[in-house]
């Protein structure tokens, strides 16, 4: 048992805004009682629930492809030295698995959602997730360009498509569905793209990206999946793409949806020269429609490597930058592209992107619906989150940074007119309580009795980036994992998955289609349950239990 006394608590899930209270922990959960045990004096310190990352790329074929393409970065970055009980690792743009756990926990994040998994290599993703220590994990499967499902939608077999979606989620031992450039990646298999909701999808006559997003959101709601459709919209990164994004949002009225890395989808103009922010317009629509959540996908200046299932976009980025290009098309399902990238304040496009990420975070008025992310490693590496928190909390610091932007950015961004500063309560919402709620992880991002004792204790510090980058303590499952920058323990994290219902005869329906498209055996394709370490099956709605901590 353990007691934390005197800390100032920010626990948005329970409406606690900066109150001094004691917390008791027993058996890895918050408890109402304390009999005996260690007491930690947190007087004068700030306590928040452990961070929850709703959208990151930390495990599997694509980030590992990114590691392969960037040895020059591994060579210059920080290195974790092994100890008797702890593995070595490298940080940087695409950290190794062990370092990923140390770096997330090191800044107080205790749950991460790997947002892009091809089912074909899900086995690989889980192997890597098993090797990320400390934090709990979940993953989303890439299904919006799955040709077997698209064929069924084309044939009007929507019910069957839904069953197959459920089958795939369970085959991948996954937690939900990710849609990347719906239809566009399918077109990429022909070297094309599908940029708009009415665009043709190569190989199909009756369905468009609009059909896919609408039907997928509906199917996911019908299956009762805890996390809504997690959507990377069509036409990412392109000037003028705000129209596509708004059109997508209109398609999804009445459904739940999570818009990933909205920053990349909020641009006006019609070429790179006149590209401008449309964050204000997008935020206005978003504020009025409460069916949606989003994560920022904020950009910070510096080096990174971009990694996405959006193959055609990465081909364009390669042509624009002339830098290294990795591409991996995955049979029947999806693709993946890798291009190293440097965001420069002097570059007008990059400067607009930097502003857009912050504008969205500041202009969307409900912190329960917009979450902190950089689409790691695309906009910046996750371990730079404290810098973004500083930008959100300090208007003066933002203005200082804006002084470095090109002069001709005037009228292209609205950031200079925004004076809002985030409070600690709002920070706890966008980094923890909000994303946990969006993911449907009821025992996360919450300091209430019976919830997982994942929390972070910060020194009060005027230097916000330093405060959030160097917690005094981090607790995971009631155990001190970080103390004053030292990694104390590296427990294994849990992995969350769901088992949505599908009719058992789907196997026999799917088998011939599978054998036609894939080149591995149908029986060998699903990931075996015993490969998931510390699996926690969460319930879909329709199953009644409150929290699904089974197994």
């Amino acid at each position: 048992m353990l007691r934390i006394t005197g800390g100032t608590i920010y626990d948005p899930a329970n409406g606690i805004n900066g109150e001094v209270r004691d917390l008791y922990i027993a058996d890895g959960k918050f408890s109402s009682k304390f009999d005996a045990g260690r007491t930690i004096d947190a007087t004068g310190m700030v306590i928040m629930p452990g961070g929850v990352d709703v959208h990151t790329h930390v495990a599997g074929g694509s980030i590992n492809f990114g590691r392969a393409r960037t040895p020059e970065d591994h060579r210059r970055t920080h290195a974790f030295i092994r100890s008797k009980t702890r593995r070595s690792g490298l940080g940087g743009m695409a950290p190794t698995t062990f370092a990923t756990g140390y770096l997330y926990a090191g800044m107080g994040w205790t749950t991460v959602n790997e947002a892009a998994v091809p089912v074909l290599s899900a086995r690989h993703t889980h192997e890597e997730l098993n090797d990320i220590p400390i934090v709990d994990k979940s993953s989303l499967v890439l299904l919006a360009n799955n040709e077997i499902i698209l064929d069924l939608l084309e044939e009007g077999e929507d019910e069957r498509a839904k069953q197959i979606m459920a089958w795939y989620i369970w085959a991948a031992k996954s937690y939900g569905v990710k849609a990347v450039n719906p239809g566009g990646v399918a077109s990429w298999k022909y070297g094309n793209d599908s940029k708009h909701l009415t665009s043709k999808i190569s190989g199909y006559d009756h369905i468009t990206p609009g059909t896919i997003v609408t039907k997928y959101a509906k199917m996911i709601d019908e299956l009762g999946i805890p996390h809504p459709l997690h959507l990377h919209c069509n036409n990412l990164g392109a000037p003028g793409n705000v129209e596509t994004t708004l059109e997508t949002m209109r398609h999804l009225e009445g459904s739940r949806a999570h818009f990933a890395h909205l920053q990349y989808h909020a641009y006006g103009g019609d070429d790179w020269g006149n590209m401008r922010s449309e964050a204000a317009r997008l935020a206005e629509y978003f504020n009025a429609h409460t069916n949606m959540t989003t994560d920022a996908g904020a950009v910070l200046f510096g080096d990174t490597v971009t990694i996405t299932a959006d193959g055609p976009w990465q081909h364009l980025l390669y042509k624009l930058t002339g830098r290294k290009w990795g591409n991996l098309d995955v049979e029947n399902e999806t693709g993946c592209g890798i291009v190293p990238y440097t965001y420069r304040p002097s570059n007008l496009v990059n400067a607009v992107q930097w502003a857009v990420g912050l504008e969205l975070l500041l202009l969307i008025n409900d912190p329960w619906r917009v979450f902190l992310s950089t689409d790691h490693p695309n906009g910046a590496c996750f371990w730079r989150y404290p810098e973004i928190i500083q930008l959100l909390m300090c208007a003066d610091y933002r203005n200082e940074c804006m002084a470095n932007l090109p002069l001709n950015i005037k009228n292209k961004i609205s950031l200079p007119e925004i004076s809002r500063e985030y409070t600690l309560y709002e920070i706890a919402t966008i980094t923890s309580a909000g994303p946990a709620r969006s993911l449907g992880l009821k025992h996360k991002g919450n300091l209430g009795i019976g919830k997982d004792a994942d929390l972070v204790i910060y020194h009060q510090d005027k230097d916000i980036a330093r405060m959030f980058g160097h917690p005094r303590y981090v607790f995971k499952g009631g155990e001190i994992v970080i103390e004053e920058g030292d990694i104390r323990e590296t427990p294994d994290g849990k992995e969350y998955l769901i088992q949505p219902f599908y009719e058992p005869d789907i196997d026999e329906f799917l088998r011939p289609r599978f054998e036609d498209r894939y080149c591995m055996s149908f029986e060998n394709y699903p990931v075996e349950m015993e490969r998931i370490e510390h699996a926690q099956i969460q319930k879909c709605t329709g199953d009644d239990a409150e929290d699904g901590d089974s197994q």
Partner: protein
Amino acid sequence: MELKVIENATCTFCGCVCDDIELHADDVRIHQAKKACVLGKSWFLNHTAEKKYPDALIDGQPASLDEAIEVAANHLYEADMPLVYGMSNTTCEAQKECVAMADLLGALLDSHTSL
């Protein structure tokens, strides 16, 4: 004797890693490897569960597994610059153990790829 049939077995002889092989085996050997190519067939049929070799050899002399593990650990621990090499004809699970051991040893770590 009835042969055990393993469907959709995986062949790791070459990089194709075909996973549609049908193996017919008794307790000691695989008698048939259906769908396997000529290389795969010989791969499957030439490995048996017979005890053809001693558990271990130390300086060329038969030894027990426990002794061999102790001596191997000793050599590796005493070395200033040990090398962990190979990792082709083995499982990912063993490869992970190799990397973990190399990490602990502060060793050089390399695979066939460097050839």
